């Protein structure tokens, strides 16, 4: 049954791509695809050749199991929703998607990447985590496979590799964004930083935050560290922050340790303003965590599931219907990544019979020319270096939902 369906899809896609090659019908096909797509305003470059089409094979890599599984699953699910939408549209470009598990480990991620290559992957959406992405990016650069990571935020992922792009903010971007926001809105606060010093993501944001905070004249009164092995008890760090008189605690960490911190701070009656970054996203849907503890927590995130625009609401509804959860920022990043890939494929005029390397070269040229209206930002554009340009947004958790701060 499934095979039959697949065969039918492939056949119809083939027929479509053939029709697209016909010439006169081609521009109609691609323009209808662009206008009817909910997220991508694909071809802003008028030079888009009209012959883009076919069923492309997209590979997705992320930690589907293990301690970071919530991120990988969000990415795989978000990408799947975008792929389903695009396929249901029936435009010239159709996608076939396969997601592989990498347990957030570099070696396994490279293995997963090779596995996807054996499957015939033409475009890579992933990996999800920073360390894994850096390892895979080097391979993708050598193999000339176009790579768009939804959520790996370190500049090391993209630097020096022309075919690697990011959908999320970079670490410096987040650290600087957080410091700038604090300098503007809470300039005279005493800041404590608690970060995980054996994690690439956490340390990356911490380093840029500290240097930007110094430049903006913010006062950092305490810095506490922890590692993966000591992420179960934060009484030392919290007592340190409290006795140093900190009224703002910056947490450039993932949400699991953050939940412990919030819990312990509550137990010891310490009530500073907690300020997180995009790794904090997901804390409200965490199992066994009382969302009331996260009341008043601020975080810097490009996506809020409670936004009222139609696009977000449709996405949240589709995600909840399919997976029963409220999507987090990673799902939204992956959703946008798939639409960005679609827009770039259209702009580059790629067809699915091209090999990965040809598609890669065409997309590298097309990427800086496209602009995508996605869940995580309006009018996202990419620099040739691979970094995305979109506005960060600070939200505060009020009554269990993200709201814009007053």
């Amino acid at each position, binding site marked *: 049954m499934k095979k039959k369906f697949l065969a039918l899809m492939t056949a119809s896609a083939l027929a479509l791509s053939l029709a697209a090659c016909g010439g006169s019908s081609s521009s109609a096909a691609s323009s209808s695809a662009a206008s009817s797509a909910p997220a991508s305003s694909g071809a802003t470059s008028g030079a888009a050749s009209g012959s883009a089409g076919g069923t492309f094979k997209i590979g997705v890599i992320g930690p*589907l*199991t293990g301690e970071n599984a919530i991120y990988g699953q969000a990415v795989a699910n978000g990408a799947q929703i975008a792929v389903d939408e695009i396929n249901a549209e029936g435009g010239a470009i159709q996608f076939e998607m396969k997601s*592989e*598990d990498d347990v957030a*480990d*570099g*070696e*396994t991620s*490279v*293995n*997963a*990447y*090779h*596995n996807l*290559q*054996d499957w015939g992957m033409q475009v890579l959406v992933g990996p999800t985590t*920073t*360390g*894994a992405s*850096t*390892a895979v*990016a*080097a*391979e993708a650069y*050598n193999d000339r496979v176009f790579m768009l990571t939804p959520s790996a935020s*370190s500049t*090391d992922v993209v*630097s*020096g590799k022309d075919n690697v792009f990011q959908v999320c903010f970079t670490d410096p971007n987040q650290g600087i964004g957080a410091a700038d926001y604090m300098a503007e809105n809470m300039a005279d606060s005493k800041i404590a930083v608690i970060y*995980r*010093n*054996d*994690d*690439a993501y*956490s*340390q*990356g944001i*911490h*380093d840029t935050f*500290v*240097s930007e905070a110094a430049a903006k004249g913010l006062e950092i009164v305490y*810095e506490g*560290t922890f*590692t*993966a*092995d000591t992420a179960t008890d934060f009484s030392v760090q919290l007592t340190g922050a409290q006795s140093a008189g900190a009224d703002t605690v910056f947490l450039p960490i993932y949400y699991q340790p953050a939940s412990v911190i919030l819990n312990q701070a509550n137990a010891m009656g310490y009530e500073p303003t907690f300020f997180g970054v995009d790794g904090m996203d997901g804390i409200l849907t965490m199992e066994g965590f009382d969302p009331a503890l996260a009341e008043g927590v601020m975080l810097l995130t490009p996506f809020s599931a409670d936004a009222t625009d139609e696009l977000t609401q449709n996405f949240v509804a589709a995600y909840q219907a399919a997976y029963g959860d409220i999507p987090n920022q990673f799902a939204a990043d992956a959703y946008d990544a798939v639409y960005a890939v679609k827009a770039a494929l259209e702009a580059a005029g790629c067809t699915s019979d091209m090999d990965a390397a040809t598609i890669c070269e065409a997309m590298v040229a097309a990427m800086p020319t496209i602009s995508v209206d996605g869940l995580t930002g309006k009018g996202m554009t990419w620099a040739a270096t691979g970094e995305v340009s979109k506005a960060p947004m600070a939200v505060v958790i009020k009554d269990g939902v993200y709201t814009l701060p007053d």
Partner: protein
Amino acid sequence: MKKMKKSTRTAFLTYLSVILVFAVMYALDSAGMLTRSLSGQLVPICCYMSMAVSLNLTVGILGELSLGHAGFMSVGAFSGVIASMYMKDIIPSVPLRLALTMIVGAALAAVAGVIVGAPVLRLRGDYLAIVTLAFGEIIKDLVNCLLVGYDSKGLHIAMNLTGNMSINDLGLEPTGVAIIKGAQGATSTLTIASFTAGFILVMITLFVVFNLVNSRAGRAIMALRDNTIAAESVGINITKYKMMAFVTSSALAGAAGALYGVNYSSLQATKFNFNTSILILVFVVLGGLGNLWGSLVAAAALTILPEALRQFSDYRMLVYAIVLILVMLATNNPTLKAALGRLKPSKKQEKEAAGNV
């Protein structure tokens, strides 16, 4: 021809099969007949084989339990990465640079082995297990504090012990390259590892271990394992021979780590955690204590297995665990052992029969 000793025969058969397997895999790989998945795993498999054989020297032949073998791999990996990045402009030849990288990795891991072994190997009991366990954790935390950069003035190294420093505090020139950035690890390593280098590493490892085992020192080491008191009574210097085996083992692990380090452009200290140490111990136990070719087969099989199980998607590690348990049960099954035992004497009889003719 004079009849070859059994140990020598095993050694030569192992060399021969490794060479054969390498030749076949190399030919298949060059002809593009391997899947990308398998050809990408060739170098890590070689590293894990070398790790397993070297750990077998400590656990199987010396008879001391080590739970921190990944720590030596870590020392080798990060020193190898630093060495290879430092030499990238000085030595343009990649094979030479790779060889030097592995030598540096081996040397530093040997130093670490001396530091760990010197106090502990004087003791009797399971102290080595405890201390190596701690060593693995200490190395992880030390590398997390390590900041290394390189510019025209040479290497810049800082230990970020207070947690307040970043790579900017190294004072690198604008053209300088950051090699290791604390917790972010090595993030821009040039990948120079090759399957041939992996093969040579495995051959050297086997050669060193086989020759050590079959030498006078090796017999002393095994005598220590079997009966320490008896060995001491005939005048064997216990600490010296224990150190010899342990330091050799850590140096070989360092060389394997160096090759592993330059095979990936990004490497974090957390990769070499307790789980990795246990994984290598599993290779050794599954292959059989003291059985070197068993370690080789187990390392290769257990590295390929999780990838081969990808069709089970989320359940693959579950299936992996079940397969592992089944294999362990099967290899310890008395019926199976008896069946294997029946095969062996018949072989011997044949040979004797052949010898008589």
